[in-house]
């Protein structure tokens, strides 16, 4: 372990991150709220902390190893979660304690979108903007952003990138240089966000709301500037725009990049993960539309389709924006929505969950096992799209799925120990581990009322979910620390 190097990189990242305190300050000045104080204080603290970690090892030169990458990324996310809580903790406008501030900050950064705040509509705009911005930065990944703008990370950048980017095939680069890849991803992300904001504005939001919601939509975050979330507008145009951009955020950005570069939509159709993801989306939407029409009498077919498409997109990518009170929907529907979040978005997207590609591989693999029962000597290559999948990837996928499910079960039990009922506990796990952010049962209206211990557990699960469990889990193996 190269602690000097880790400290240097961590310090550098914090210095960069400290400047993200500036946009909320600008918002505060623009609306003349006088709420910039906490952000300036946090800026100074973050900057000084970063410099303190960075400067002693300024001249230190070493190559970042794979192992260091895991530690740097996990540390960075943890530290950022704590630092990000500072403005909320300091500000007098937000009456939260330390636990709640960290919960809120981590929930934003990991694009979870679970909130302990209520009366959001009356908070200062700078605070609202800051929450949305946290999600946006976390969406494509703060480390990926750092790799894009700090060329000195060099080869080490690849180690960090691999530890943060979601999905089972982490070696795929869009361009030969990792910094260029990271830059391309962020540019694309920025472009999509701007497009989303423009459409929101055209559909009837104020500019402030349009920008804020474009952040949480494309990042598949889930924070809103209103307590009622998207139901505040109840506007079909806004809802369909949101559905579209949530889905875009939930698709692999490498795929967007290929489409962008090839100037042809055909790449989407050819991508097996995209097809799987969209098939599930259409399937769920159809199921829930029918369910709504069957169980509820006073709903038009138009509204049923709009709301179910929105909710399915939002839940299945782990976004957590809502266009209506979905938790109160009848029968099986809320449970189905919660379970869609376990599969989650595509690999390399901003979405949460286990990722569609893993679910698809597990599905194909199970089909192969069934075929083998029929033809014990048969050779069935596991094909995904046009390529067959190496066993190594398959083993990694099964390992991941096993750990993910085990973790879900363990934490469901732990949550029930804090006094939740089973429905609530399952939905709390989905909300945090899948970065979903909305709950049903006792947490249908927010997470303010759960115990502190449950909040901390959820905070940990959020990071675990965002970093795909293994990056975090590997730090707890003795082998990792052995020289």
């Amino acid at each position: 372990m190269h602690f000097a190097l880790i400290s240097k990189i961590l310090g550098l990242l914090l210095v960069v991150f400290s400047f993200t305190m500036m946009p909320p300050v600008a918002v505060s000045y623009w609306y003349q709220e006088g709420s910039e104080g906490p952000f300036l204080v946090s800026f100074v603290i973050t900057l000084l902390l970063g410099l303190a970690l960075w400067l002693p090892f300024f001249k230190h030169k070493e190559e970042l190893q794979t192992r260091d990458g895991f530690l740097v990324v996990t540390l960075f996310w943890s530290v950022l979660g704590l630092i990000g809580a500072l403005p909320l903790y300091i500000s007098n406008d937000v009456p939260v304690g330390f636990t709640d501030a960290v919960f809120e900050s981590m929930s934003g950064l990991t694009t979870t979108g679970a909130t302990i705040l209520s009366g959001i509509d009356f908070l200062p705009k700078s605070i609202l903007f800051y929450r949305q911005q946290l999600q946006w930065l976390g969406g494509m990944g703060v480390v990926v952003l750092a790799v894009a703008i700090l060329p000195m990370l060099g080869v080490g950048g690849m180690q960090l990138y691999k530890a943060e980017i979601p999905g089972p095939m982490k070696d795929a680069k869009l361009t030969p240089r990792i910094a260029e890849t990271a830059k391309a991803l962020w540019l694309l992300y920025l472009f999509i966000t701007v497009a989303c904001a423009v459409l929101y504005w055209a559909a009837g939001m104020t500019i402030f709301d349009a920008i804020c919601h474009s952040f949480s939509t494309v990042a598949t975050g889930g924070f809103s500037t209103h307590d009622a979330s998207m139901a505040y507008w109840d506007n079909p145009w806004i809802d369909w725009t949101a559905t579209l951009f949530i889905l875009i955020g939930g698709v692999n950005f490498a795929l967007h990049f290929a489409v962008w570069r090839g100037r042809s939509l055909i790449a989407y159709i050819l991508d097996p993960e995209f097809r799987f993801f969209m098939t599930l989306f259409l399937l769920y939407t159809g199921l829930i539309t029918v369910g709504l029409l069957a169980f509820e009498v006073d709903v038009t077919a138009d509204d049923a389709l709009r709301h179910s498409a929105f909710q399915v997109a939002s839940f299945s990518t782990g976004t957590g924006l809502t266009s209506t009170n979905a938790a109160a929907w009848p029968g099986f529907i809320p449970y189905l929505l919660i379970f869609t979040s376990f599969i989650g978005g595509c690999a390399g997207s901003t979405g949460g969950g286990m990722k569609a590609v893993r679910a698809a591989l597990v599905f194909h693999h199970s089909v192969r096992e069934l075929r083998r029962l029929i033809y014990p000597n048969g050779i069935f290559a596991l094909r995904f799209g046009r390529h067959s999948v190496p066993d190594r990837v398959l083993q990694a996928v099964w390992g991941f799925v096993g750990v993910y499910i085990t973790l879900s079960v363990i934490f469901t039990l732990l949550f029930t120990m804090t006094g939740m009922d089973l429905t609530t506990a399952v939905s709390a796990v989905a909300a945090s581990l899948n970065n979903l952010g909305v709950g049903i049962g006792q947490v249908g209206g927010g997470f303010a009322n759960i115990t502190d211990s449950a909040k901390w557990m959820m905070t940990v699960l959020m990071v675990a979910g965002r970093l795909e469990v293994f990056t975090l889990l590997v730090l707890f193996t003795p082998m990792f620390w052995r020289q």
Partner: protein
Amino acid sequence: MKIIILGAGQVGGTLAENLANERNDITVIDTDAERLRELGDRLDIGTVRGMGCYPAVLKNAGAEDADMLIAVTNSDEVNMIACQVAYSLFRTPSKIARIRTAHYTSRSDKLFNENALPIDVIISPEQVVTDYIKRLIEHPGALQVVNFAGGRVQLVAVRAYYGGPLVGNELRELRKHMPNVDTRVAAIFRRGRPIIPEGNTVIEADDEVFFIAAKNDIRAVMSELRRLEHNYKRILIAGGGNIGYRLAKSIQHRYNVKVLERSPGRAEWLGEKLHQTVVLQGLATDRDELLKANIENTDVFCALTNDDEANIMASLLAKRLGARKVMTLISNPAYVDLVQGHDIDIAISPQQSTIGSLLSHVRRGDVVNVYSLRRGAAEAIEAIAHGDSKSSKVVGRAVEDIDLPEGTTIGAIVRGEKVLIAHDDVVIEPDDHVILFLIDKRRTRDVEKLFQVGFTFF
């Protein structure tokens, strides 16, 4: 620059490593996924698996906007076809291919041009390595000899020994010792650490000294640094592969050459081709075989098989049995530091010698020659100064006024046929070939910038 490299073997891998460090976009193509993964983990490059000459694979690797294709797979034919495909389908501006066999290279003027096989530069690593060894044999006592300006100027590395008249003296004494010989010491490496030589630098025994001089003066300068060795006469080459054969063929008329080859078939073939060489069939790691080859009276033993370990063991054995000097081909860079300077006099790294010839095509500015020195840590560059005193940062200035990057020295200037050793007051004129020595390879970019013609007056 966007560069596609075909083949992730030794040459391809070393090339990728060197070029990626110089901030180029590198994509490596190979059929071996394992080798690609290993390379991709270590370097910041893209990798594509597949047959390098297939259009789809090349396209995948970004051939559409690539600036250069370097085909260094094992197969001459794949390399040639890849260049053809890149030219016909993707209009890749520069194409470099490794062509090994002389059957192609001997007809290169007709074969390799725009109308036939569009390859801009042919490289033959075996030939480069052969030339390299040949120069070492021609300069007894030198650790490395590289050519500039078509061989008129040479840069030579030697180890200083007690007994050399200059050892223990300041560098400025050199002029007094040899009033008629002009030379410049470019760098001194003392226990592996570089020293920028000044007039008052004292040369110590065991220093590795790099100096530049006209070809005819090399011997005189070397005599200042160590007791001069006699010219070599008897050469024993272990391994009659490509390199061994080429070397034997090119020196057999001037030296007494023996080749020791393991395979009977190959030995027979060598015997037919090499008329003035004694070809022996046997194992170079076999003590008796070496004794039979008269090892105790051999001046130079060259171990040139394709097996590092066999080369090293054979060399150690040969040295123990009385060979005066051993030169060993070692591909694995980790071994070079282990053995060079102890029992093995000179370790030759085939990648490092090949890489230089490729680097000169990748570099910006008008760079004619690039040589990797000290296993890639240092570098010697021959660049052409263009422009005039307004647009160029070097033309019209005296050597002492040029703002050279740290650790860089100008060694010599070649003006037409004339060789000028770079003293402080020499003024550089347009189209001079300037020979620079870089202690730290990372300064290469600064040197390139120095030689690019700028538009300072806008």
